[in-house]
């Protein structure tokens, strides 16, 4: 009846359990009353005692199996699945010990049923047969929807105990079966003994009763023993009745088994699991009060909000790889110096940017945008005052990039936009180790690789991880979507970068606005002289900054960008080799191009157009991987000067800031190893693609697993980055993806 409540009193369901109870208790009582006295008198008093113990055991387990909550899940609250409800695929796969297991979405319970979980159709919790399949519930005629109560490790519904057997009470059920079998055997055996030995007169009442009890026992023995044997096999195999009956693991591959002994011990010896329902709700005693702390950038997680099309001006440069290079060379100088003051909020924005940029670079943008985005993203201050930044950027971009490394401040102050507010780059400096700050400068400004290195210095891992998490299934779709959106923004902004004009597009670059540093920040449009000067300044600043900042806690995440940057690094290396005069061999490895970088700055400004394109292409891949810091150094500049830039990226890391150095070294290692990458544009292209593929692969993998293992594995090599780009002591020039050159003062 529709009007009836969900829980109707159905006497029929109590019949089996009642019958079972009656037979059990009744027969045993008769046995004790009629058979045992004779036995205890004439055979041994131990017999009744033994039987009593066994019977007590049977009763205890029977009660536990009957009354214990099998492990019912509480329903998910509304907000848990607010995104999933309409878009949720019916199944979600997870990988358990290498085997794909499907989890079904239950619309009633509003979560994906954990593995081995099922709904009990009989317990009246779900009107539908076999469950709360969500959609089907509504169709059940005459039934009132009741909350689904999925059971963990659902075994079956046992009518004899009128309860579901699940994770919590399976042990008691199993012991009940065992003890019941033992009890029946005992009763039958001792009854037989009594009869055969004619303990008392055969025709007496007692004999009759004993015979009756024996018959009952004998009758029940067969099914009970059969069921017991069945469950012994199940326990040994680590399966539930549900799985056995539905033939899930007919192929023999059961991800839930740990071996026979372990399975048995798990059933019998593990601590009883807690129940979920009926718990007193813990009162929330912790108060959440603003103001809230925000994580410091020093963690390396420059979560630049992608919305922020940070480095607008500079980004313009890098519209495409080719153009990117061109722009880079010139834009290296043109990059607007980051705002003088790192703004925490902005920084945050930038970080997101960077993160997103990285993500997008690696995964989404792959081919489209020039690799520089990362670098741009990093640019501080872009977020807000893009417009303002734009103008100066164009002129000072290139140089500023180089200089940025030195000092966010300098970048910020770059000539024109003192008001440039978004200064993520500055922020990093304050928060992070000097290295970071430096790198920050570099990245947004000079090249993607720079940014990646920056990021890595910072513990890009955070970003990368972020990216990766975004990619992996574990993240909510929302996050993923936002990432995508941002990526798009990033790419757009990146494009804007390519245009070497001061168009607003430039500002859209996510890398973050890079306000022109007052000092040392040169934009491609500035004269070489200025650039030179800036570099010098930056150098100085950088050096000073470098030392103190050392300690900033950086999120070590070489692993992350390692993956992505491998190709980029390789490409960068190639470029570097091609473009610049071979620096000291050590430099190549170490990114000790810093010094050369300086030179490149001016040079870059001069001929950035041509060279930057190549640079850009190279850098793009770098840019994609914020982590790829090391790649930056490798990033050969289109021409000798630009090449230096790349290198500098690497070197500063080393000496200047442990963090930076780490990433740099890391990348340099990679680059060294991968030196064979394709050259120039191709290099840029390939790395771009590769990381993306990697990312996709990773995403898929992590999807199934729910744990981004794959992510970790890739970068494995990167790990410890002993890269040692020796700090040149002066300014290291690192060329970023966009062809900008960063000067990292060591």
């Amino acid at each position, binding site marked *: 009846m529709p009007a009836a409540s969900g829980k109707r009193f159905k006497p029929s369901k109590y019949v089996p359990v009642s019958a079972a109870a009656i037979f059990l208790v009744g027969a045993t009582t008769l046995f004790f009353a009629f058979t045992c006295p004779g036995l205890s008198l004439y055979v041994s008093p131990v017999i009744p005692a033994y039987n009593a113990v066994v019977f*007590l055991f049977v009763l205890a387990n029977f009660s536990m199996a009957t009354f214990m909550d099998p492990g019912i899940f509480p329903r998910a*609250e509304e*907000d*848990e699945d607010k995104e999933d409800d309409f878009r949720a695929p019916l199944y979600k796969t997870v990988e358990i010990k290498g085997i794909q297991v499907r989890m079904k979405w239950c619309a009633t319970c509003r979560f994906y049923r954990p593995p081995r979980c099922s709904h009990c159709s009989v317990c009246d919790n779900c009107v539908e047969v076999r469950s709360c399949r969500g959609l089907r519930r509504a169709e059940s005629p005459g039934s009132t929807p009741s909350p689904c109560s999925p059971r963990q490790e659902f075994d079956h519904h046992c009518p004899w105990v009128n309860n579901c057997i699940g994770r919590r009470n399976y042990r008691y059920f199993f012991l009940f079966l065992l003890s019941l079998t033992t009890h029946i055997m005992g009763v039958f055996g001792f009854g037989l003994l009594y009869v055969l030995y004619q303990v008392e007169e055969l025709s007496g009442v007692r004999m009759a009763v004993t015979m009756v009890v024996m018959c009952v026992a004998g009758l029940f023995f067969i099914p009970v023993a059969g069921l017991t044997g069945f469950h012994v096999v199940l326990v040994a195999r680590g399966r539930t009745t549900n799985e056995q009956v539905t033939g899930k693991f007919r192929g023999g591959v059961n991800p839930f088994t740990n071996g026979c002994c372990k399975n048995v*011990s798990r059933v019998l010896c593990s*601590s009883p699991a807690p129940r979920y329902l009926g718990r007193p*709700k813990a009162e929330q005693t*912790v108060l959440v009060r603003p103001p809230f702390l925000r994580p410091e950038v020093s963690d390396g997680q420059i979560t630049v909000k992608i919305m922020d099309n940070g480095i607008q001006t500079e980004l313009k440069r890098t519209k495409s790889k080719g153009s990117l290079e061109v722009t880079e060379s010139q834009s290296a100088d043109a990059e607007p110096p980051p705002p003088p003051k790192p703004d925490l909020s902005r920084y945050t924005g930038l970080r997101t940017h960077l993160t997103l940029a990285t993500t997008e670079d690696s995964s989404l943008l792959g081919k489209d945008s020039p690799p520089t985005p990362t670098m741009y993203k990093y640019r501080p201050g872009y977020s807000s005052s893009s417009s303002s930044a734009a103008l100066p950027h164009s002129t000072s971009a290139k140089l500023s990039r180089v200089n940025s490394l030195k000092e966010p401040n300098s970048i910020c102050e770059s000539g024109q936009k003192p008001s440039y507010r978004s200064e993520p780059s500055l922020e990093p400096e304050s928060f992070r180790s000097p290295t970071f700050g430096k790198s920050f400068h570099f990245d947004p400004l000079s090249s993607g690789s720079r940014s990646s290195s920056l990021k890595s210095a910072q513990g890009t891992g955070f970003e990368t991880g972020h990216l990766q998490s975004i990619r992996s299934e574990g993240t909510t779709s929302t996050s993923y979507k936002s990432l995508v959106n941002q990526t798009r923004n990033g790419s757009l902004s990146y494009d804007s970068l390519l245009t070497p004009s001061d168009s607003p597009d430039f500002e859209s670059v996510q890398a973050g606005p890079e306000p022109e540093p007052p000092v040392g920040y040169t934009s491609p449009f500035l004269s070489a002289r200025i650039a030179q000067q800036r570099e010098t300044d930056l150098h100085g600043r950088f050096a000073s900054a470098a030392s103190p900042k050392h300690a900033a806690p950086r*999120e070590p995440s070489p692993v992350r960008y390692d993956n992505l940057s491998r190709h980029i690094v390789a490409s960068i290396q190639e470029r570097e080799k091609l473009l610049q005069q071979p620096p000291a061999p050590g430099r190549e490895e170490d990114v000790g191009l810093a010094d050369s970088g300086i030179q490149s700055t001016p040079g870059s400004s001069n001929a950035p157009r041509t060279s930057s394109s190549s640079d850009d292409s190279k850098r793009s891949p770098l840019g994609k991987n914020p982590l790829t810091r090391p790649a930056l150094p490798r990033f050969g500049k289109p021409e000798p000067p630009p090449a230096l830039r790349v290198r500098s990226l690497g070197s500063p890391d080393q000496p200047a800031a442990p963090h930076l150095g780490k990433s740099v070294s890391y990348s340099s290692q990679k680059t060294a190893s991968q030196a064979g990458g394709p050259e120039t544009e191709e290099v840029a292209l390939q790395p771009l693609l590769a990381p993306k593929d990697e990312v996709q692969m990773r995403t898929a993998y992590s999807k199934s697993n729910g744990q981004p293992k794959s992510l970790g594995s890739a970068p494995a090599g990167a790990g410890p980055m002993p890269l040692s780009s020796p700090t040149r002591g002066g300014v290291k020039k690192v060329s970023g993806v966009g062809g900008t050159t960063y000067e990292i003062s060591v």
Partner: protein
Amino acid sequence: HCPQVHSLQELRRSASLATKVFVQRDYSDGTTCQFQTKFPPELESRIERQLFEETVKTLNGFYAEAEKIGGSSYLEGCLACATAYFIFLCMETHYEKVLKKISKYIQDQNEKIYAPRGLLLTDPLERGMRVIEISIYEDRCSSGSSSSGSSSSSSGGGGGGAGGR
């Protein structure tokens, strides 16, 4: 009930629940209770990655300890059998003891690390050990756009929310 709500109402500068993040279970090792240590992107700007990962790893360690099959759990089982499970009336199981530890740990983390950052962890036990729910709060005063997202449902601890009271 909702001390949070109280305090929120009392303060001039209050925090409102903006959104919730759910850290899912990690089933890669079977049905043992483990949670993913993957860093949710929504927390990017709210908390350092290390802190979060450390919290989740510690929780995973606790759950592994709870489900551990060792001498103590075996003895507990034997004792329970011997007393016909009456012992459960008086004694806490090993699992329950660890759950208490977990709950204390979560509270401690909330007080020290998460609440100052505008986050709140909810004990996974309340969600059937399926997810770790992290509520993200926004500063109502400073961010106009922050929506009290979850509203009615509020965070686990919040209970019925203002209206409910």
